[in-house]
């Protein structure tokens, strides 16, 4: 059927009549609150409160309820003694690889593939990742994230980025892999490079946060403070060094709305199942690999070779070499390993910061490679330089404060 011009206009009128309703606009408190949360004077207090809630719920659910409340008791009092009882020959290599230390009374110390591996993956990291992604999905679907992007736009511009860089940054606190992919929302090569490098160095993933909460609950704040300072300072320096442009953008801020349960469930399932598929094998195989390196004497040899750098430059025990190698596989695994090394609180803080900044985990490494090998090499170069310089600075701060 072919319509002439009049018929087409009649059809337009008909559609407009059925779909558009005219009335007087009345501003509601929701509209005003929507505006207030993007203005710095009123928006920054809200951002403080939202970030507080994010971290508080994360700690309460993952730390107090799941890990400390149930999983520690299950793994330490039931699973570990059972594994130690049923696995034959405590002096065998297989026992060392799969069950770990026969005298250990908790899963952090045992460090076997099936004891510490399952405890870290299921008992510590899974609840952390689950609650992180749930809150992330709620923030996304409620319409708050674009407002946060507007609020931090000025600060991020000083680091060669713009407001939307907050999205990969927050995603990186869950897992660096989707965060690296999300750097594609940034316009220029310069912005993507800076963001990718900062993510790889200064943004700890949810798994690492979860294990930090378990191993060094009293020092997590200091570690995060060092990482935040590094994120801003090195972001600023990179924006001055890296050539390229940093254009202004227009951000479309949607109205607030109630998140839909179906959407939240779908996102949560997609992201958490992705984590289970990608991360759990890495944790288990990572422990196996590290234990093999211990058996082969490689870790002990590396500890000896890098001892001067670790002890004198970074101010941490030479045994930290082992966890740093493990960090290439999984950073959460490396932090768990640190708990078995004797050191002061400041050394522990320095060691955890070093693990965060020295190299991305292998999964992040692969995704960075997909974004371009030239960018990866440049990012790794920056990364080593930053780790060396910043690690030394942290040690120097400790010396000045008399705590190193």
């Amino acid at each position: 059927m072919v319509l002439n011009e009049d018929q087409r206009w009649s059809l337009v009128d008909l559609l407009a009549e059925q779909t558009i309703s005219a009335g007087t606009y009345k501003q509601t408190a929701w509209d005003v609150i929507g505006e207030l949360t993007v203005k710095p004077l009123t928006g920054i207090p809200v951002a403080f409160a939202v970030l507080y809630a994010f971290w508080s719920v994360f700690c309460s659910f993952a730390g107090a309820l799941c890990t400390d409340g149930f999983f520690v008791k299950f793994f330490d009092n039931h699973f570990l003694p059972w594994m130690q009882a049923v696995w034959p020959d405590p002096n065998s290599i297989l026992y060392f690889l799969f069950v770990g230390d026969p005298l250990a009374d908790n899963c952090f110390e045992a460090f076997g593939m099936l004891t510490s591996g399952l405890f870290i993956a299921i008992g510590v990291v899974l609840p952390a990742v689950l609650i992180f992604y749930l809150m992330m999905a709620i923030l996304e679907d409620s319409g708050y994230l674009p407002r946060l992007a507007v609020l931090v736009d000025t600060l991020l511009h000083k680091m060669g980025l713009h407001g939307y860089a907050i999205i990969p940054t927050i995603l990186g606190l869950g897992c660096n892999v989707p965060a690296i992919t999300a750097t594609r929302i940034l316009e220029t090569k310069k912005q993507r490079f800076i963001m990718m490098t900062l993510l790889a160095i200064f943004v700890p993933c949810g798994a690492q946060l979860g294990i930090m909460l378990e191993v060094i609950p009293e020092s997590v704040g200091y570690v995060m403070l060092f990482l935040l300072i590094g994120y801003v300072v090195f972001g600023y320096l990179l924006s001055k060094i890296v050539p390229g442009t940093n254009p202004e953008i227009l951000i479309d801020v949607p109205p607030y709305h109630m998140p839909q349960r179906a959407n939240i469930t779908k996102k949560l399932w997609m992201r958490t199942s992705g984590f289970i598929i990608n991360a759990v094998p890495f944790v288990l195989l990572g422990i196996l690999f590290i234990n093999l390196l211990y058996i082969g004497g490689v870790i002990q040899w590396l500890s000896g070779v890098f001892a001067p750098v670790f002890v004198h430059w970074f101010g941490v025990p030479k045994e930290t070499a082992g966890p740093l190698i493990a960090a290439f596989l999984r950073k959460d695994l490396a932090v768990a390993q640190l708990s078995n090394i004797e050191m002061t609180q400041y050394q522990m803080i320095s060691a955890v910061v070093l693990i965060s900044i020295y190299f991305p985990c292998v999964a992040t490494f692969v995704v960075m490679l997909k974004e371009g090998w030239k960018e990866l090499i440049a990012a790794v170069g920056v990364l080593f330089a930053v780790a060396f310089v910043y690690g030394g600075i942290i040690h120097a701060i400790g010396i000045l404060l008399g705590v190193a």
Partner: protein
Amino acid sequence: MNTEHNTAQIYIAALGLVTMILGLVDILVWIGFTGGIEFGIMEIAGDDFFRWAWGGLVVFLGGALMLSGCRNVGNIQEFSKVLLGAALVWIIAACDIFAMICENIPAGEEAPEFLNSFAGFVGGFAPPYAPAVILLPFTLVIAYFFYAWGFADES
């Protein structure tokens, strides 16, 4: 301005002031200005940066927002600031209550069973409470104003 608005204005100003003071005390106790405070059913332990310094700052800013909007509560722009201030207190209080729930569901570390008894669970909610939790019922009056005065109505 009608009498109801006048009364609400005084109520919100007083509430904002008390909220600001309690937020400030949270921070001061954390700094070490004074030791932990226990006053009736209220407790400010001040032993944790995150809870008392950061949380205290949010409570303080919530009070400041309530005060900044209390002069003309009949105006939607000003009332929204009051509502936002109350929302900040709700966030901190909700986090405190959620933490209590999470801590009281499992049985203690030494107990052989996994789940807490019902009596143990309920007993975990006994006082003392943090200031934000005590402020919560008083700030809920602002939610009442929000609906009663028609600010929640859609266009």
